[in-house]
């Protein structure tokens, strides 16, 4: 048996290629610089979310002279793709190759769980800015968005009070969906609410395979539901909302978390009108930090700022203040950053002031009820009222 020369050459060149990638890393030990690794989906299902996050982080850098805590930032952006299978190698590379001082970003909960493990093992702070599953240990982990069950907890009392009768709960069958729905269902039933679902349990739709929701919507129409609560994001949210408006349940009020946030609202169009949803941000919030944020954002992008952009902007703000706490002249280290984040106190944000919960390391913050309506000629999520302050 001989090994054809072509293949030997192939094997050797492969080895050489892999070796090449190892040689272009630079050393990051210089006291005036800090290396930040930013992970977000720049391709795949969550691309628009990932781009909002990257742009939010970049906006903070651009409006602060490209510096965090007075030190020049070397920002290394990595593509998270559709989930952990792409996110984990990308993040591993940031840690092992670029030797970043801190990680930030991360769109999906599954990616977060995998990257959190990596950050903790390598003792690097991770400032997550989107999905956040429940974590057993929060050492090295920080969060600027919210824990996945909090939107449901925040809106459940409002739904209980304003809907006369049982509510049907439906959501996608993955960890993030389970967390979101659990927050709502547990709080709602604790307040004496009754689910309209026939077996008293949330209906799960296969994820990511479901694009046809009509069978499920038809099932809702068979119950005595007076309203529907759901959590969907991305393309599933578009399909769900559009088909909802054309189904037997079109007249039932639809409540949701996330459902209409970001670029998907354009795709949903008029079928999204009147949907009430809960979030920690609305672009029309009236506070100085938000006025600055919205103005700077609108000067650079022709899309509306989203909670994704806002939370990443805050992640940069958190790092800014934490790095500033490291005495000038001293090298920035992951451990110093991590300790400094823990001592930050109140953070002034476009969403209103918030602070890290000492237990979960995610924000204690105010939640808002919003409704999709025309803002001029464009559909937008407009603020209806403040809901509860949740977190911790």
């Amino acid at each position, binding site marked *: 048996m001989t090994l054809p020369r072509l293949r030997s050459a192939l094997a050797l060149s492969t080895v050489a290629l892999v070796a090449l990638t190892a040689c272009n890393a630079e050393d990051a030990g210089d006291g005036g610089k800090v290396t930040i690794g930013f992970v977000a989906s720049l391709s795949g299902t969550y691309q628009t979310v990932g781009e909002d996050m990257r742009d939010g982080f970049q906006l903070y850098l651009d409006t602060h002279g490209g510096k965090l805590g007075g030190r020049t930032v070397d920002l290394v952006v990595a593509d998270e793709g559709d989930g952990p299978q792409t996110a984990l190698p990308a993040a591993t590379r940031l840690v092992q190759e670029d030797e970043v001082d801190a990680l930030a970003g991360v769109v999906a909960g599954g990616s977060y769980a995998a990257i959190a493990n990596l950050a903790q093992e390598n003792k690097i702070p991770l400032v997550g800015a989107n999905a956040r599953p429940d974590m057993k240990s929060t050492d090295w982990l920080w969060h600027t968005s919210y824990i996945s069950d909090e939107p449901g907890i925040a809106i459940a009392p409002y739904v209980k009070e304003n809907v006369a009768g049982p509510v049907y709960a439906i959501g996608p069958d993955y960890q993030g969906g389970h967390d979101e729905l659990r927050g709502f269902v547990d709080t709602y039933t604790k307040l004496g609410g009754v689910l309209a679902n026939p077996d008293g349990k949330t209906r799960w739709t296969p994820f990511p395979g479901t694009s046809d929701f009509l*069978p499920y919507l038809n099932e809702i129409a068979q119950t005595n539901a007076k309203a529907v609560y759901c959590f969907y994001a991305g393309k599933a949210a578009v399909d769900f909302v559009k088909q909802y408006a054309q189904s037997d349940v079109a007249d039932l009020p639809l409540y949701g978390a996330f459902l209409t946030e970001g670029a998907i609202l354009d795709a949903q169009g008029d079928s999204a009108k009147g949907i009430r949803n809960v979030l920690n941000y609305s672009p029309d919030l009236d506070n100085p930090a938000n006025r600055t944020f919205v103005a700077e954002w609108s000067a650079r992008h022709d899309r509306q700022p989203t909670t994704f952009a806002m939370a990443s902007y805050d992640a940069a703000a958190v790092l800014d203040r934490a790095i500033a706490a490291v005495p000038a002249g001293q090298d920035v280290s992951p451990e110093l950053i991590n300790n400094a984040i823990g001592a930050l106190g109140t953070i002034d944000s476009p969403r209103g002031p918030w602070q890290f919960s000492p237990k979960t390391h995610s924000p204690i913050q105010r939640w808002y009820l919003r409704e999709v309506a025309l803002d001029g000629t464009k559909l937008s999520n407009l603020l209806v009222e403040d809901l509860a302050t949740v977190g911790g």
Partner: protein
Amino acid sequence: MADAYLIPAVNGVAYGLLLYTVAAGLTLTFGVAGVLNLAHGTVYVLGGYLAVSLSDGTWTGLALGALAGTGAGLAAGLLLWGMLRPIEGRGHLAQALLTFGVALAGGALLVRAFGTDELRPSLPAALDAPVDLFGHRYPAYRLGFIGVAAVLALCGVLLVRRTRFGAAVRAVADDRDMVAVLGLDPRAVMAGVLAAGGALAGAAGALGAPILGPGPRTADTTLLLSLIIVVVGGLGSIGGAFIAAIAVGQVQSLGVIVAPDWAPYLLFAAMGVALLARRRRWAT
């Protein structure tokens, strides 16, 4: 209680008819030309993207989209035929691998051109609204689609069963050596069949865009579902594919409600069983 299953069942028919249109093209290329075209789903998506781009909420836009989708599918079929020519005689597997590479590269180009979102066309107002169906609301477009696709399917079946062209197609599908016996030019048969298969996929993509819209994952979904239909329907049988497509539509629509735990496995399990049951005839 039967009422509860009415809408999912009707919906399953719409879905099934859509899948049938796609799978009919695959059946044709596999049954007659012997090409396992793994780029078939990508042609579907191409038709879908064109329809979405041309749609502007008018009937003209809708018609243009359908025409463009069909035309592009036809062209894609011919392109594939051209690409397959140099490897003629290298067997099914080389063909399958080539079309797979085309699917991968073509899918990437389409995503580059149209973005990563799953798109939907904007429909004429009359179609973009619910209609009343036995006291239930149901999307008007899907109801219309059932009508159009049923007519198309009927034409297809009549074409294959009642015309000389159909007789030739059936003869060749039964035994590929019949091409020579019938005095047909095998190259013309290949080109025609690939073009027709592509046109069917393109048309399905254009008309089916409001139901199964073009996006980064759509090509894989469509290809795998059509493969199941082609296999379960008996590898090359148009009538068999029709029954299989309706069944797959029902599993996807009714199945997820009635047996949510088992529905996902059902399709590939059926495919495996059908393959093993028929393996002798198609062992080559």
